């Protein structure tokens, strides 16, 4: 990973304050996990089913992982986890998990009617199935590493653009063009509403709104196209999709199987922005991140969304606090810092005097607090309106700040942000301007240093101090209460409210998830060198 750096442009920050932030955030994350350890969710179990190789839909169109989990839920076995029941069924039938799932969907098999077996035998089978899954994922990961070694990749900041036509075939066209124009990372935005669906759609899709459904087939089609472009262009093009929503772990699994490179995965986004139940989200994020970590996928957190919802000038500390928390949740799930792409954004009112100085302060602060993270910088959006020319000028200044402050992943802003999801040429124009700024400003941060005690440094120092205070408060009251209080993005959620709550269940004493065992506590890098 060629980590970008802000050169000589460095803030003078108190390392003790940063350390204190880390300490608080770690306590916050650990406390959450201690409370939730005894719970699992339908999404986690469906992900296990997928990891075991189950895919496809029943005649009614219901995805087989749902069929399996629903069936197990009806038969009362869900509390044990789907893994041992599937393992048992495989042993019983001699088939693969997919065969079991199809048999269940076809009404030819019923979990309840499968006779018990010795625990160690069933666990061993489950472990074997899990190891196969891990191997499948690692082989995609190695594939990525080989491609990068062979084809190379752009210098950072990497230019990241979205495609969002709603139609995977149009998306493919647009993505290919974007790559040939200079994009390094292509994100396929999901259709509005997918995050609230408690299943993952199946097959190629052509009818999304404001985005395209995330399906494994869509992932595959896009990955294939981008692999072709990568070969053509002689540089590896990364593919992104979204984990958030009611299906975080399943989508993480699909991403791992289809060699996605980056996934939006935020510990709290679902709670705050989709009104998904807190426990559900926090359990799901953990398992999904274990898989993201294993697959070598860079996760991107969603703090930028706070800044679209509340005033960016005043909410800097909350963003930073949330980044510390997201980081520690990710580390706990075994993701190394090199895969933790914390998110932030350029969203201060452009007409505020010295707004650029505040943006630089925040961007440097994030860069310096998380030196090993491939931080992702989001462009201005809220303060754009239909004046596409002004929006383009605003993006240009944003581009400069992205380059000057050494951000790693540079999401390219669109001049038509306030009008529509990007058109083919919107992306061209935005990439052109971002490339110009990237090349023209090469070396700038090595030529400049900050004057101590001036606005930029003072602002950064005060943001850091406030973030520390926010984190201490969250540590004191716990994350659940903090969200109930509306500390993040000004959004208040009830611990027991929100969608998908019915999908949370208490693990039985017999509960077994071989992936927990395999992946827990390990940094994903470990797997490759094992």
């Amino acid at each position, binding site marked *: 990973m060629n980590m970008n750096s802000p050169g000589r442009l460095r803030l003078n920050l108190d390392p003790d304050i940063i350390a204190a932030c880390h300490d608080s955030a770690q306590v916050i994350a650990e406390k959450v996990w201690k409370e939730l350890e005894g719970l699992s969710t339908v999404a986690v179990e469906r992900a296990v089913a997928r990891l075991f190789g189950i895919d496809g839909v029943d005649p009614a169109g219901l995805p087989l992982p749902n069929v399996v989990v629903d069936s197990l839920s009806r038969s009362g076995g869900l509390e044990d986890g789907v893994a041992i029941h599937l393992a048992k069924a495989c042993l019983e039938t001699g088939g693969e998990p997919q065969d079991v799932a199809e048999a269940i969907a076809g009404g030819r098999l019923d979990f309840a009617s499968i006779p018990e077996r010795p625990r160690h035998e069933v666990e061993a089978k489950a472990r074997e199935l899990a190891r196969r899954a891990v191997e499948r994922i690692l082989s995609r990961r190695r594939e990525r590493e080989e491609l990068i070694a062979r084809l190379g990749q752009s210098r950072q900041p990497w230019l990241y653009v979205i495609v969002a036509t709603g139609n995977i075939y149009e998306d493919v066209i647009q993505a290919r063009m974007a790559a040939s124009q200079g994009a390094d990372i292509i994100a396929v935005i999901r259709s509005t509403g997918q995050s*609230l669906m408690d299943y993952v759609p199946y097959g190629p899709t052509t009818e999304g709104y404001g985005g395209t459904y995330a399906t494994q087939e869509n992932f595959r089609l896009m990955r294939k196209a981008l692999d072709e472009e990568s070969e053509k262009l002689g540089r590896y093009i990364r593919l992104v999709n979204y984990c958030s929503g009611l299906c975080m772990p399943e989508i993480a699994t699909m991403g791992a199987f289809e060699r996605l490179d980056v996934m939006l995965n935020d510990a709290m986004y679902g709670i705050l922005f989709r009104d998904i139940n807190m426990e559900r989200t926090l359990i799901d994020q953990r398992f999904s991140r274990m898989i993201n970590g294993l697959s070598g996928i860079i996760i991107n957190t969603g703090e930028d969304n706070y800044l679209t919802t509340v005033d960016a000038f005043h909410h800097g500390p909350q963003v930073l606090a949330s980044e510390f928390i997201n980081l520690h949740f990710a580390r706990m799930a075994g993701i190394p810092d090199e895969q933790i792409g914390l998110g932030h954004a350029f969203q201060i009112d452009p007409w505020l005097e010295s707004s650029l100085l505040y943006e630089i302060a925040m961007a440097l602060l994030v860069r310096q607090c998380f030196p090993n993270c491939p931080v992702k910088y989001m462009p201005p959006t809220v303060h754009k309106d239909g004046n596409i020319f002004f929006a383009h000028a605003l993006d240009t200044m944003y581009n400069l700040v992205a380059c000057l402050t050494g951000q790693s992943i540079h999401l390219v802003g669109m001049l038509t942000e306030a009008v529509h999801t990007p058109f083919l040429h919107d992306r061209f124009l935005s990439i052109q301007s971002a490339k110009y700024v990237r090349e023209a400003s090469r070396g700038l941060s090595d030529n400049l240093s900050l004057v101590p005690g001036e606005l930029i440094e003072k602002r950064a120092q005060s943001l850091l101090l406030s973030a520390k205070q926010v984190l201490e408060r969250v540590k004191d009251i716990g994350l659940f209460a903090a969200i109930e209080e509306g500390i993040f993005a000004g959004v208040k959620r009830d611990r027991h409210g929100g969608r998908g709550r019915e999908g949370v269940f208490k693990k039985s004493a017999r509960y077994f998830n071989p992936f927990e065992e395999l992946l827990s506590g390990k940094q994903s890098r470990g797997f490759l060198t094992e």
Partner: protein
Amino acid sequence: MTVDGANPAAEKRQLPRGKILPYGDRHGDGMVQVSFTLELPDGPEAEEAGRQVMKLMGLTDPQIVASEPLGPSFTFFVGYGKLLRPVDLDNLKVAKLPWEKLDPETINKMVRERLGRPIVVVGAATGTDAHTIGLDAILNYKGYAGDHGLEAYSAFRVVNMGSQVDNRDLVARARELRADAILVSQVVTQRNVHISNLTNLVELLEAEGLRDDVVLVCGGPRLSHALAVELGYDAGFGPGTKPSEVASYLAQEVLKRKGV
């Protein structure tokens, strides 16, 4: 030998009264900028096709000033041309907004005196739309651009259901609260998803026999009063709407309906 004998009056090449053309740097020059993409590789053929697009737009002297290859098979064009077909100002149909702007005290007073109770308002961003900022701007105390939201008025009792609200849940809630008005926000408009969402709500209300009991209002950055009326709403509010405008409308409309 002087360069010209300018005459300011003669110079003002006035169009016929009530007719207007776009203005670039001279009255009546008709100058318009366009940009678009064609699915053709860059080259003289694409450029000629680009010029034809401009002709199909009725532009005189079409000039393609940039053609940028977007990849092997698409080209982006920027063009300038003259639109010499005037707009007839006298025949403009500007949807007249059916209310006047009142100040908060007047609204509060008028509702207190004439209705004797606050107007009950239920608001939601419906369907899968999760954009709440616009709705909150209208409803919440904080308001928008220095103008307080409906919550700040004694004239309103506000229930903000938030985002991603199913139309059925919204209707149920409105019935339960005996709401005087329903306020819907729709921000995502790709492939006209807002139109189908909005239409569906009207159908539900009609099916439940509730349509005439409520003042039905929608808002969002791609909505206008004209479009709202077309879709069967009583009013619609577009970008930049201030809460006090909505408050003025609601107070006047509800009181009128109640005949008080």
